[in-house]
């Protein structure tokens, strides 16, 4: 009797353990999302501990795909930051990266539609993934291939699952002046017929809502059929942005591609069930993928080949003043010049050269003097006297000071520092602390007022 009972118990125990193992081996569906890269291909390297970048994202996706789960990566919108050739190249590179990472779709954000319509046309016809928008219409003389929704069928744990992706852009974010070729309709009105159609076809409705969280919450109230809304705009720390409206999960990937969101679903005979949501910071735990490193090198080569440095338009300075170069300042201000040359400002150009970024206009503007202005830095061959963050980067163009040495010149304050030491490139910047690093000694020259600080 005891033996029978014992064996029965062991069998039951084995059954429980095996069922748990079976459960652990079951495939899940992962909706992986990113967004608002704003041209951030990789951490800029200006400071330690930066997160984000396509090469780490690729590694994360590799790790996820190494498991048995089915992964559907999607993009919320705003790959580029602005209009211009460098942003166009970045958008092309990002689209290729998304294609290589097997993204399903990219929803159009307001920055995307401000880019060159020909670029949108080109990318919409040549990318490996589908461009998505349920409420944007283009009227251009050339074709732009945008889908109002994407219906993706996949096999998860033996069940056929159909996931419908819809995408909207908030009317509040759309700048009417941006383009005459674009019309953005009211999101709820645009979604109504599509949600009605798709709720019969799909097991899961996902909305890529390029809008503030508050607006997405209102959309969730109108469409309880939508299970997941990927949203947010200009959210720096997405960790605290997870919101539920009834049973709809609303979550943001944050900005500049620093985080990747992962929403996990399990499947069963009755349908599909959400299991968890996670926002993964792309820190140095994730290695840089070789595929993306090659793509980033290609980007730098294109920047060089197309001579973006030399092609930037130069804006005239007020009152026709001009840059003279730090060496000229040093002719009189020897002590100050000597001090400056030993600071990080004095070697700023070399820090770019050591990383191979000396042809990148976005980097060069803060690592040289006067870039983008008439008489400012253009390239090393033309004016190497303006390399590094020179005297005139803080004090202003020096020609009036040379002409009128006794007149006031060069008063500067922390606002001038913040042109380069901004939130993106120098988040740890504190004026008092950083000032001490570059504060130069006073130098009184005979007959001339003391050097301004």
């Amino acid at each position, binding site marked *: *009797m*005891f033996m029978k*009972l*014992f064996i029965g*118990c062991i069998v*039951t*125990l084995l059954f*429980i*353990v095996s069922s*748990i193992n079976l*459960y652990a081996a079951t495939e899940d569906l992962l909706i992986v999302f990113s967004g608002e890269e704003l041209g951030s291909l990789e951490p800029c390297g200006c400071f330690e501990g930066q997160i984000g970048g396509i090469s780490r994202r690729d590694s994360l996706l590799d790790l996820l795909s190494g498991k048995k789960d089915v992964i559907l990566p999607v993009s919320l919108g705003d790959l580029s930051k602005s*209009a211009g050739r460098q942003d166009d190249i970045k958008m092309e590179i990002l689209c290729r990266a998304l294609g290589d990472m097997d993204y399903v779709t990219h929803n159009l954000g307001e920055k995307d539609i*401000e880019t*060159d*319509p*020909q*670029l949108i*046309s*080109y990318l919409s*016809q*040549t990318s490996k993934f589908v461009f998505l928008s349920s409420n944007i219409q283009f009227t251009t*003389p*050339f*074709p732009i*291939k945008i889908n109002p929704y994407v219906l993706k069928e996949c096999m998860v744990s033996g069940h056929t699952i159909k996931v419908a992706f819809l995408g909207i852009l908030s009317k509040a974010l759309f*700048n009417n*002046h*941006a*383009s*005459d*070729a674009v019309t953005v309709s009211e999101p709820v009105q645009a979604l109504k017929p599509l949600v009605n159609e798709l709720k019969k076809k799909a097991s899961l409705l996902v909305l890529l809502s390029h809008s503030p969280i508050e607006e997405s919450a209102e959309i969730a109230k109108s469409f309880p059929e939508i299970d997941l809304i990927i949203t947010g705009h200009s959210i720096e*720390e997405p960790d*605290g942005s997870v919101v539920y409206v009834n049973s709809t999960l609303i979550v943001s990937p944050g900005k500049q591609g620093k985080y990747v969101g992962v929403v996990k679903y399990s499947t069963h005979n009755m349908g599909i069930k959400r*299991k*968890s*949501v*996670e926002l993964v910071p792309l820190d140095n735990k994730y290695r840089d993928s070789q595929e993306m490193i090659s793509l980033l*090198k*290609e*980007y*730098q*080569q*294109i920047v060089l*080949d*197309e001579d973006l440095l030399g092609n930037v*338009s130069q*804006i*005239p300075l*007020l009152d026709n003043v001009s840059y003279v170069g730090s060496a000229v300042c040093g002719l009189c201000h020897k002590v100050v010049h000597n001090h400056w040359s030993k600071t990080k400002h004095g070697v700023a150009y070399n820090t770019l050269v050591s990383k191979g970024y000396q042809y990148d206009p976005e980097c060069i503007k803060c690592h040289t003097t006067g870039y983008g202005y008439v008489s400012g830095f253009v390239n090393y061959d033309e004016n190497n006297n303006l390399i590094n963050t020179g005297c005139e980067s803080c004090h202003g163009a020096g020609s009036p000071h040379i002409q009128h040495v006794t007149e006031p010149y060069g008063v500067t304050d*922390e*606002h001038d520092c*913040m042109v380069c*030491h*901004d*939130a993106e490139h*120098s*988040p*740890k910047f*504190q*004026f008092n602390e950083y000032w001490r690093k570059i504060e130069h000694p006073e130098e009184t020259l005979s007959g001339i007022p003391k050097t301004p600080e």
Partner: protein
Amino acid sequence: MNKIQTFIITLLIFFSFILNAPALIPGELKNEIDTGEKSENKPEMFFEEQVYNFGKMYTGENVKHEFKFKNVGRGELSISNVKSSCGCTAALVSKNKLRKDEEGVVEVKFNSGHYVGKVTKSVVVNSNDPVNSKYKLTITGEVIEEVSVSPKRINFGIIRKGDSCTKNIAIKTVPELKIVVKKVESPSSYITITPHKEAENSYQVIFSNYEYLGKFSGILFVYTSSNKQERIDVPFSGEVVGDVTFYPETLSFGSVKYRQDVKKTVIINFINKEVQIKKVEVEPVSVNYTISDLHNISTKKIEVKLGDTMSGRITGSLKIYTNSIIQPVINIPINGEIKG
């Protein structure tokens, strides 16, 4: 025997609970459970307010606010650091160690710098408070400009060759500052700026008489009497198209390995439906191309491959000859570098 039965059943229930437990706890709930403990002898940080709204201020101004806090726990409160979300926000704590019922202040300073619009910046106070070790303080408000130009960037869009295009800009100033708009001008010869008769500080910006095809860009300068915004630069851009549009304007292969299978695509759109491609030439000759219809006959796709091009710098071009009078040849430069 009953005791043995009870023991085994209890054991089974125990095992099944232990083995299933991780699957029953969703990831989202883990933090709540972890941080749920509270000890009577531990410190507790309490802030009277966690959000401060500074209202409105002008670009370039600073704002400072003191967040008062108190250790309402029993143990000593130790503040390890105060972290800002960005360089524009500085925070200082009056003291790092506070005994029971002792009060302190976190001074938060926000420097608006070049910000415009609504801002929300936060600092996180890290301490040994076991319940709330990361206390988030938020400073919020709106930064306004003395002078604002709308739009900040003019997009003329796509213009057919020979057509003109007019856009409007409006310049707004803060009335009490009595700022004067001195002049609005552009060095570009194809831009004309005329003031609106009805609306003050509104201007028509007219693009006309542009001789070329392709993208154009430039800047309008708005000069004012504001000390902070003496000159406001308003960039403009657009594209003049003829019979054919194409993308990209340069085929940049970047840096590729020898015999690496790399292809680039050019998309050609025929705006004038009567225009056709007569022939295509490519240099260097080792570069291959294929041409095909894309979706419809008004769009062609040309795929360009490097083929057996030797190592070193590549410079060449893809020339597309058409029957268009205004665009008989489309020249797309090819560049890149083959390594190894």
